[in-house]
């Protein structure tokens, strides 16, 4: 990764250190700034790849995605974390659509943002957060935050340097890069592949959904019985 990228990474990591709980409002604000600056400089250091408009859209979406992710992990309130996560999903969906993966992008939106995150929001709010829970305000242990942020930063750096190898072009492309651009048949091809090659996986995932559904219900029943038995001596 180039120098700008390295500095951006340092900025990002510093910002995260400031923003992630335990933090105060002041450090959070400063952290937010640093994070944004870091992401921007990383993105700026990345090689350009296309027409300016496409590049601009990519930058915006990437900034949205990464920034919202950073915000999601630094928000003390789980509610806000979930909302920022949803925003990050929006950015992700945009990135996917930009990569001519329209269906997947929309599915991400619908399933993740529409279903999962909203459900989690409900759960969070049902849990009735009484203001600032200790576990939301603090990380565990004194070294946890620096260690994990350092580890995460190292991970980013290593990933960056490893992925830099693709710029050499020594990974041959399997196709010519044109067929995905044909938007009109995208969905049809997706469906074709989904129900021919991956038919078995589709069936299996259907089973899995059923199992998960029944499992979730079973968990609820199991837990409810527990409560019922616990209440007996009280009555």
């Amino acid at each position, binding site marked *: 990764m180039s120098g700008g990228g390295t500095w951006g990474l340092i900025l990002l990591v510093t910002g995260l250190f400031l923003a992630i709980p335990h933090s105060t409002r002041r450090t959070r604000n400063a952290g937010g700034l640093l994070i944004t600056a870091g992401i921007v400089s990383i993105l700026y250091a990345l090689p350009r790849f296309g027409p300016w408009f496409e590049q601009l859209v990519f930058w915006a979406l990437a900034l949205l995605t990464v920034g919202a992710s950073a915000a999601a992990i630094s928000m003390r309130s789980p509610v806000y974390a979930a909302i920022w996560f949803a925003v990050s999903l929006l950015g992700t969906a945009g990135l996917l659509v930009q990569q001519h993966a329209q269906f997947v992008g929309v599915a991400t939106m619908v399933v993740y943002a529409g279903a999962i995150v909203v459900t989690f929001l409900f759960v969070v709010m049902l849990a009735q957060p009484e203001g600032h829970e200790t576990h939301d305000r603090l990380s565990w242990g004194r070294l946890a935050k620096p260690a994990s942020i350092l580890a995460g930063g190292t991970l980013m750096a*290593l*990933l960056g*340097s*490893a*992925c830099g*190898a*693709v710029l050499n072009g*020594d*990974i*041959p*492309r*399997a*196709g010519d890069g044109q067929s995905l651009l044909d938007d009109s048949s995208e969905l049809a*091809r997706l469906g*074709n*592949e989904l129900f*021919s*090659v*991956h*038919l*078995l*996986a589709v069936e*299996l*995932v259907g*089973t*899995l959904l*059923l*199992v*998960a559904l*029944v*499992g979730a219900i*079973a*968990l609820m*029943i*199991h837990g409810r*019985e*527990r409560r019922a038995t616990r209440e007996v001596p009280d009555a």
Partner: protein
Amino acid sequence: MVDGTTIRLLSSEIVLLGVLAFLFLAGTFVRRAHGWWPVFTALAFAALLAIYGFVDRRFADFQISDSQGIVLNGPLVVDLFGLLLRQFALVIGLLLALLCWRRHEEELTSERMGMIVALVIGLLIVARANDLVLMFVGLETVSIPTYVLMFLGRRDRGSAESTMKYFFLSVFSSALVLYGFSFLFGLGGSTQLVGAGGIQEGVARAVAGSPASPLVPLALILLLGGLGFKITAVPFHFYAPDVYQGTTNSNAGLLSVAPKIAGFLALIRVYVAIVPERYDLGWQLPLGIAVLTMTLGNVCALWQRDLRRMLAYSSIAHSGYMLMGIASTVAAARSGGIAAVIFYLIAYSLTSLAVFGAFAFLESQDRPLQRLEDLSGLGKSNPLVATAIAVSMFSFAGIPILAGFWGKFGLFTSVLQAAQGAQGNASWFLFLAIAGAVNAAIAAAYYLRLISTMYFQEARGNLPLGGGLGPFATMLASTILIVGIGLFPGITMQRARLADESLPQPSSGTRMRAEHPPAQPGFQDLSRADEGSR
């Protein structure tokens, strides 16, 4: 599009799906006689095992004889490895259904049995998957029922805690696996693992380039990190002692068997298949992890007074032994490492089920079997169960004429073979063999401590024997199988070796494309669409 071949190939899965649906549906309406669900499930597995011998076996034999051992086309691979491990998965399903049969369970029995069936479906798929998508879905089909089953154990805090730990770390690890998969996809440009234009070729290409692409080690390490969680390899093992300790005995038995089989199957199907020949990192990683895993597992087990915690460390150590086979087979393809791993996996799983079956039999809802001291005097009070536990411990420790001995024998042989086969790296494998031998010696200490507790300490009161028939049957059947395999190791060993030989050989460049046999007509529906669409 679906023709008879596919149906027959997937007959086991289809039947099991039917069983699953029946369990879920009928379980909702029938609110009585819950004790029959495990019997029904076990019978279903038994019947399927019998049927398997006719339908799937014949089909597979037919296919294999046609195409020299392997059908590589699309997401499913039909070979003797899959055949053997699928049969074994059905056996495991049968034993697990019995193991999870609780005497006093009023509700949710059918759901739990359904989860076991789903888990076995996952194992069946993983044993045959040749595609990242199918592999991923298969692995998750093993994982998700496991979460549910773990939560449906006891209703105490420890059980909930262990479920939580397992769930969260498992989700974390599957993210790692997926990230590794993404780089594999990137390297190969396809989700197919072995075959024309598959990931195996891509990885070989990337390694052959100068300099070798750094994405290969990245992908391999992420893959090992994620799968290492499933097989409890150090340093991805942390959850195992806590989770085993917190959960019930039957769940610990399940946990020591199902994810581990799935993990090793995936490791063989993905990792071993794609690592090219003469790629040093490919064997160095499992070798290092193997040494770490078995050493750490054994030395930590020495300290434990909690039964399940000790067995958790023991299962960690056993994973280390099996990784020895993986390392040696990656280094020298003809070392017989996979055969040894298969044999060891079978021996280990059966032994583990025997132990946990015995433990589950010895406890009741009111009185869990937790500490080592709880077993004291068992040799006098219940000699049969004590014998089963002692046999299992001897098998774990690798005492001759039991299955575990032959497993270790095979593993060490393969390591020594690899030491011969891997020119210039012999010292690594000799070191591995010595480390393995030292570990086997250390391990004997805590296994024998358990046995001596049973036989040479005064009883502290009778154990309730509240597990009922199911765990007892599991214990008995597994023990008999251990002894049987120990007495007749040739049968299993031969099948394991055939399975090993049926696996695709590691690629050394782009030769696979030229030598690949033409597509089978019966697999049109499963063949790649993008090839067909052109």
